[in-house]
């Protein structure tokens, strides 16, 4: 009787082997394409620059920024009103969401365009005003709320409805037997979204709206690192103390109070707005029905294909990088490894990295390393990797290991990773959509992705071109989302916690 041969490397049909092949494929593809990416370091002495930044962070100068309280109030006010109006629009849409394909498509479209791009677009009509800031958050958030609320409502337990007496109207049925059953989930998601809105609101400063990000950007750009450090601390404190001031009873008062700070409100010229929407955004040859002219118009868009290629490449690199970072970092915050001080430190680092928006991280790396894809790659990988690592560590903490005697390396490879890997990969694929969205956006810092051309088209007042590029960006985003959805592991082995929708808390 011949003994069966041991299977070859990564051969086999178990779930984890399939996942391993899938992720190694992703990393291999990234490595093959890496030579096409521009990864040059162009600054003279990046380490010295980093040292100056860190010393700024350690010796912050809180008094250097003028009108800091105003910037903080605006940041909170924009985030709060953006979320609030997003809920007001998104909730009714969520009720229609399962029934209308057109609605689902439109929501996917408004979601696919980053808040900052919306801000750039709205800026042309409403100027640097609160209308621009709030609408830039409200529009994509309405699309997001519509989708996520619809998903939550779909999971409403049926039993209370079945128990109702005959003849109860739809509305009464909804508010008594359906809505209360999912209220907790709806409000916790809304709360989480508000936290995302805070980050986005800070970022609105990068297009010139006077939030915290505006001062942060100028302080960094002008090398005033003590001031920049202080602003960063303020930002982290604001996010970390959210549970203190973001109380349900307090928020309405903050919302009302902030109204007084949000002005002056712009005069909206209806005719001008209509002209912008009906004429300025569309290529002239298209409006005239001149098809050969339209062809020529296409030809005049600079570097369209390289920009798309760069966006996809950077997205791929960011996804692969996040995978590696997440695999390396999650043990830092897990109770299965290290001791209390190392875990505290590890958690702290992960929270810092996931709270810092990619754009801000990329901007900081850009100042250090000079303009290339490298800062963007680092920012995407670190931010998303840390975010995934944090969630994976939380899942890991719910696992009770079978044997305690294993050394740390075997505990990682044999006990924990096999149970966590499916969840980790699912999070990564959920995240892929966000990564590609951010990738396009990072172009605003001068990296040659689509965002760069969108930004410069707006700068040259070529609205038709900017709008066309926005459409391309949205299309790309929707396509990548569909692709990621296809390759996302469905049968996740052993992930405690939010079963079915592991990615809901990882989408901003």
């Amino acid at each position, binding site marked *: 009787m011949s003994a069966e041969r041991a299977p070859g490397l990564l051969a086999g049909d178990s779930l984890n082997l399939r996942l391993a092949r899938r992720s190694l494929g992703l990393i291999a593809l990234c490595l093959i394409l890496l030579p096409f990416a521009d990864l040059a370091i162009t600054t003279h002495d990046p380490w010295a620059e980093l040292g100056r930044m860190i010393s700024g962070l350690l010796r912050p100068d809180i008094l250097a920024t003028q009108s800091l309280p105003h910037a903080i109030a605006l940041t909170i006010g924009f985030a709060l009103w953006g979320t609030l109006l997003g809920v007001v629009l998104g909730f009714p849409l969520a009720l229609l969401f399962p029934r209308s394909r057109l609605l689902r498509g439109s929501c996917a479209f408004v979601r696919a365009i980053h808040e900052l791009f919306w801000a750039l677009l709205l800026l042309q009509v409403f100027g640097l005003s609160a209308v621009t800031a709030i609408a830039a958050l409200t529009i994509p958030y309405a699309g997001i709320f519509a989708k996520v609320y619809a998903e939550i409502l779909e999971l409403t337990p049926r*039993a*209370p409805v079945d128990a109702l*007496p005959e003849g*109860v109207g739809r509305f009464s049925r909804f508010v*008594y037997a359906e809505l209360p059953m999912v209220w907790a989930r709806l409000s916790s998601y809304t709360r989480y979204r508000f936290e995302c809105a805070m980050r986005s609101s800070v970022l609105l400063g990068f297009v010139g709206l006077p939030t915290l990000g505006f001062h942060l950007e100028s302080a960094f750009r002008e090398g005033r690192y003590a001031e920049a450090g202080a602003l960063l601390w303020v930002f982290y404190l604001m996010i970390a103390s959210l549970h203190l001031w973001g109380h349900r009873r307090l928020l309405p008062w903050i919302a009302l109070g902030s109204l007084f700070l949000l002005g002056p409100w712009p005069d909206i010229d209806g005719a001008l707005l209509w002209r912008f929407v009906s004429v300025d955004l569309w290529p002239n040859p298209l409006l005239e029905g001149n098809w050969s002219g339209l062809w020529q118009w296409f030809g005049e868009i600079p570097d369209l294909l390289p920009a798309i290629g760069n966006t996809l490449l950077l997205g791929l690199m960011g996804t692969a990088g996040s995978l590696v970072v997440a695999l390396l970092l999650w043990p830092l915050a897990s109770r299965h490894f290290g001791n209390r001080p190392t875990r505290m430190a590890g958690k702290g680092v992960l929270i810092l990295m996931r709270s810092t928006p990619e754009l801000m991280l990329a901007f900081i790396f850009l100042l250090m390393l000079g303009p290339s894809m490298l800062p963007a790659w680092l920012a995407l990988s670190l931010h998303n990797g840390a975010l995934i690592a944090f969630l994976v560590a939380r899942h890991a903490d719910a696992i009770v290991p079978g044997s305690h005697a294993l050394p740390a390396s075997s505990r990682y490879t044999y006990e924990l990773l096999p149970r966590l890997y499916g969840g980790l990969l699912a999070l990564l694929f959920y995240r892929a959509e966000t990564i590609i969205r951010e990738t396009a956006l990072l172009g605003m810092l001068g990296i040659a992705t689509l965002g760069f051309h969108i930004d410069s088209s707006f700068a040259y007042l070529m609205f038709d071109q900017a709008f066309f590029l926005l459409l391309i960006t949205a299309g790309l985003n929707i396509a990548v989302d569909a692709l990621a959805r296809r390759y996302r592991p469905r049968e996740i082995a052993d992930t405690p916690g939010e079963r079915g929708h592991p990615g809901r808390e990882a989408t901003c």
Partner: protein
Amino acid sequence: MSVEELVRFDGEALGHARHTVLADLTLGLRTGERVALLGPSGVGKSTLLAALRRRLGQRAAWCPQEHGLVPPLSVYHNIYMGRLERHSALANLINLLRPRRDAWRDIQALCGELGLEELLKRPVAQLSGGQRQRVAIARALYQARDIFLGDEPVASIDPHQARRLLSMIQRQHATCVIALHQRELALTHFDRAWGLRDGQLILDAPARELTLEDLDTLYPDAHSPDASPEPA
């Protein structure tokens, strides 16, 4: 016979879309009859009750198990839902924010009888299993119908209280069909017993003609020493 027959099944099959739970069912429910529905769990008691509920429509109050309640809402609101169809959508909405005075008074009285008087404002999620069942019964009583259909309404309630609650239900409803697993109660509080086993109605007899041994035959494991259904 002068007594009106409310429902009649004549060799019918009951079940879900593709799966027959009760085959060839023949039985009738008459006005003024108190029926205990017995049988091992999963045999189709709920299916039969659901069919009765469909046939009787607005004439029957319905008391499902506790999972029919809405845990985040208060006891008051859960009971109020028994009459949700009698008020306009707007009145119902306002009631969520500020209880109606008349409904509050009625429900308070009802809760007094059921030992829930201190709990009107408490969310159902914070109640014990037995308290939840009493809320479910209160909701069915609040519906104020002629007929009572109950799916194990006294399952996790102690025997003494179970008797009291059954008497209360029967005082308000001359006709009732109640699924039970306490066989003794079936003999003491009901006129008739229906027994289901293996997808069939194998027992349909007046309670006074039955003994506990007759009821034991419904349960496949009744003769093994430790598997008899919880003693009541």
